[in-house]
């Protein structure tokens, strides 16, 4: 994995491909690599849809190896949604295949002059870029079907739907799963719009003729991987809750705690929560002949996903996960799992971020465009986006734009990005991360990684009042590091509680690359990534005033506990003081 594919879409008469080495970016993968390239090569003040922006797609350091859970792929650029640096990541098969072909990244540069659409084929023989206007405005599902017909079924695809082609700020980049369906999305920040601005509809990856990447020390790597898998399997979250119920297992508990944002963040409890919970969803999937425990890529041992069938037992979509079920469910007052699954399918097919769409529809409901609970109305709105009507383009531009167009005061965004499924008035520490992450409001920016094992910034006393500032900082550092490995972030739960599992992860990296990394090195990697991202944002015009939650979180008490967000601006400004 020592090569970078650079595709210049502005070249005449046709896009030009160059294969370069990784000089200047050695030892980086995933988010570390995407952010480093964007930081070094993209002018911070450029328009995100201009030829100056670059779309960087990078597998993780351990992708393409035998390491379990190593199938995440990072997509980075300057975001059209936030105006800052962005890394969004996804599961699925492309990460493993791209890494096995020896590529550390694909960098799509420039911008074609006309409105032609291109497909890219990457295989052992090289890289081909071909014009294919027959793919215009196709959904992700149909696009993948066409690629299967053309290139066979042993491929994986990275594609955009109509939302990306229309360069809408909520557009995602889709990656295919084990069944070759476009269900795994690098959703956040409008990365699909940047791919659309480059005129690239789909990247087809065919790894036929390649082998697993070989570690420097095979036996040491094998042992570390076995220990890592054992740690994941014995942990109650990764070995029990996630496989049985998926991430949607969170619905009931967040709702009971009064931290489940309902009716556009008006209330903290949703009466219909039990109807859309992970427990109910898993039971329904099993009853209808779907699958309640399923991996999104080969080598996944947690298997938190599933396959959702409709009432007639036919495939409808993959198992909608917690954030999706919340965004289209409780946040919009919808308690019908079949309608939520349909919204999930439409989002995937149109190429839209499910969180942004749910938050946006919540804002549209607040505006009176449709009523809370109107599931069919929500479905029609997503269809409007796919059709590219003026209303659809507004909705597809995200919550901030929709709020402005319809004159809504209460718009739950930070840096232009919709808030995920945890109300920061109830769980204030996550509000600190929402406010200060360079990515905009992002629930995965500061995950439950073992900060006290890493000893990031020293041991944190959780009982100190300032604990949540230090914890948010440490979690963001640790997460940035994990995002570079290609590892699914869900390994964090086992790392949190089991030092030996965390040690096994570092041992795997060391055995693979012949390194002697320590926990301190991992911390430094995380800090370096965040420093690059913060610097990029500062140069793009961001100030500390952008590290704030919308005002209403400080003023409007959240029922049932009637709490407001009470972390001060001064405290928020301390998060990145290291």
């Amino acid at each position, binding site marked *: 994995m020592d090569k970078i594919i650079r595709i210049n879409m502005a070249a005449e008469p046709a896009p030009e491909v160059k294969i370069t080495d990784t000089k200047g970016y050695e030892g980086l993968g995933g988010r570390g690599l995407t952010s480093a390239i964007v930081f070094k090569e993209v002018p911070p003040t450029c328009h995100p849809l201009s030829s100056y922006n670059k779309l960087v797609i990078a597998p993780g350091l351990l992708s393409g190896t035998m390491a379990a859970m190593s199938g995440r792929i990072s997509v980075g650029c300057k975001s059209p949604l936030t105006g800052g640096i962005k890394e969004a990541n996804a599961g699925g098969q492309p990460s493993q295949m791209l890494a096995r072909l020896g590529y550390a990244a694909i960098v799509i540069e420039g911008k074609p002059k006309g409105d032609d659409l291109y497909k890219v084929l990457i295989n052992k023989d090289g890289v081909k870029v071909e014009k294919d206007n027959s793919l215009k405005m196709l959904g992700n599902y149909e696009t993948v079907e066409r690629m299967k017909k053309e290139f066979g079924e042993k491929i994986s695809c990275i594609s955009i739907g109509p939302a990306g082609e229309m360069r809408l700020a909520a557009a995602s980049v889709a990656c295919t799963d084990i069944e070759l369906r476009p269900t795994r999305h690098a959703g956040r920040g409008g990365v699909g719009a940047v791919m659309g601005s480059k005129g690239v509809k789909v990247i087809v990856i065919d790894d036929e003729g390649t082998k697993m990447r070989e570690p420097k020390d095979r036996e040491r790597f094998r042992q570390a991987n076995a220990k890592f898998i054992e740690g994941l399997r014995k942990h109650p979250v990764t070995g029990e809750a996630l496989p049985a119920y998926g991430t949607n297992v*969170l619905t009931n508990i967040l709702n009971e705690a009064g931290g489940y944002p309902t009716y556009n963040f008006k209330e903290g409890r949703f009466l219909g929560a039990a109807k859309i919970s992970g427990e109910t969803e898993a039971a329904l999937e099993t009853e209808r002949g779907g699958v309640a425990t399923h991996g999104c890529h080969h080598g996944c041992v947690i298997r938190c996903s599933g396959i959702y069938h409709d009432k007639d037992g036919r495939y409808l979509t993959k198992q909608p996960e917690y954030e999706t079920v919340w965004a289209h469910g409780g946040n919009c007052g919808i308690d019908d799992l079949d309608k939520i699954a349909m919204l999930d399918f439409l989002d995937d097919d149109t190429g839209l971020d499910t969180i942004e769409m749910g938050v946006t529809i919540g804002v549209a409901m607040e505006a009176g465009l449709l009523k809370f609970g109107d599931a069919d109305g929500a479905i029609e709105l997503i269809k409007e986006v796919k059709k590219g009507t003026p209303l659809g383009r507004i909705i597809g531009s995200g919550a901030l734009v929709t709020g402005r167009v319809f004159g809504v005061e209460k718009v739950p965004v930070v840096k232009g990005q919709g808030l995920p499924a945890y109300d920061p008035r109830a769980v204030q520490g996550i509000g600190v991360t929402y406010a200060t992450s360079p990515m905009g409001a992002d629930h995965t920016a500061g995950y439950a990684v073992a900060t006290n094992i890493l000893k990031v910034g020293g041991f944190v006393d959780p009982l100190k009042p300032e604990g949540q500032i230090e914890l948010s900082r440490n979690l963001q550092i640790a997460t940035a590091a994990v995002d570079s490995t290609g590892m699914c972030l869900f390994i964090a739960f086992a790392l949190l509680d089991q030092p030996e599992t965390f040690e096994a992860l570092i041992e795997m990296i060391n055995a693979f690359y012949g390194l002697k990394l320590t926990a301190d090195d991992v911390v430094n990697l995380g800090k370096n990534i965040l420093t690059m991202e913060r610097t990029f944002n500062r140069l793009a015009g961001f100030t500390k005033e952008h590290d704030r939650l919308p005002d209403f979180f400080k003023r409007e008490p959240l029922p049932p506990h009637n709490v407001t967000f009470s972390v001060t601006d001064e405290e928020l400004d301390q998060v990145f003081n290291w």
Partner: protein
Amino acid sequence: MNIQGDCAERETSKIKLYMKTEARSMFFMLFQQGVQVKTSVGLNVRSILKNVFDITDEFIERRISTILLDGKVVDDIDRAIIKEGSTLALSGAMPGLVGATMRTHSAYESFRRAITYQEKENFYPERIGLFTIKLFNVLTHELAPTLLKKGIILHTEQLKEMFLEKERILSKYLKKACIDNNEVKPTMLIHYDRYKGMCLMEIDFSEAENDS
């Protein structure tokens, strides 16, 4: 349906079902919404967990990761007191930062301090009373059967709704049904119009197994 709001009502009917164990999961949805139990209240969470579920300290420590009392996260189960009308929710290990934050004695307790349970009562008299229990995820499978056997109190409308929804499973796995000690046909469970308000439901799985 406001289960908590009906707390003051007393049960009007007693329903006893004799079922095959395969049908257990049809009742699990009820525990997500919450069921009431009648027991000694005015005791701390640990005592009530042991009394109601017949579980050990080890089980509480090992399996019950998150405890919410009246919607707030309980860290000190020896100090928090369950009172008449309280709602107690129990969950196994949860994913995500917020899942970890919600754990009892979480290292991330500061993240959710605004919703951490603080016991304000120094003394609350022990007496027989009603409170609501909610069970989530793996704990439903592990704890609900004990409660179903001991008896749960719920609104008859809630029960009718479930019987209607699960009619097929009910007819397949129900061996015998009694209302107020009188045996009734299974169809009566759905169409019986005499019970209203709250009712006590007990389920005997073992007898059904012997029957079959």
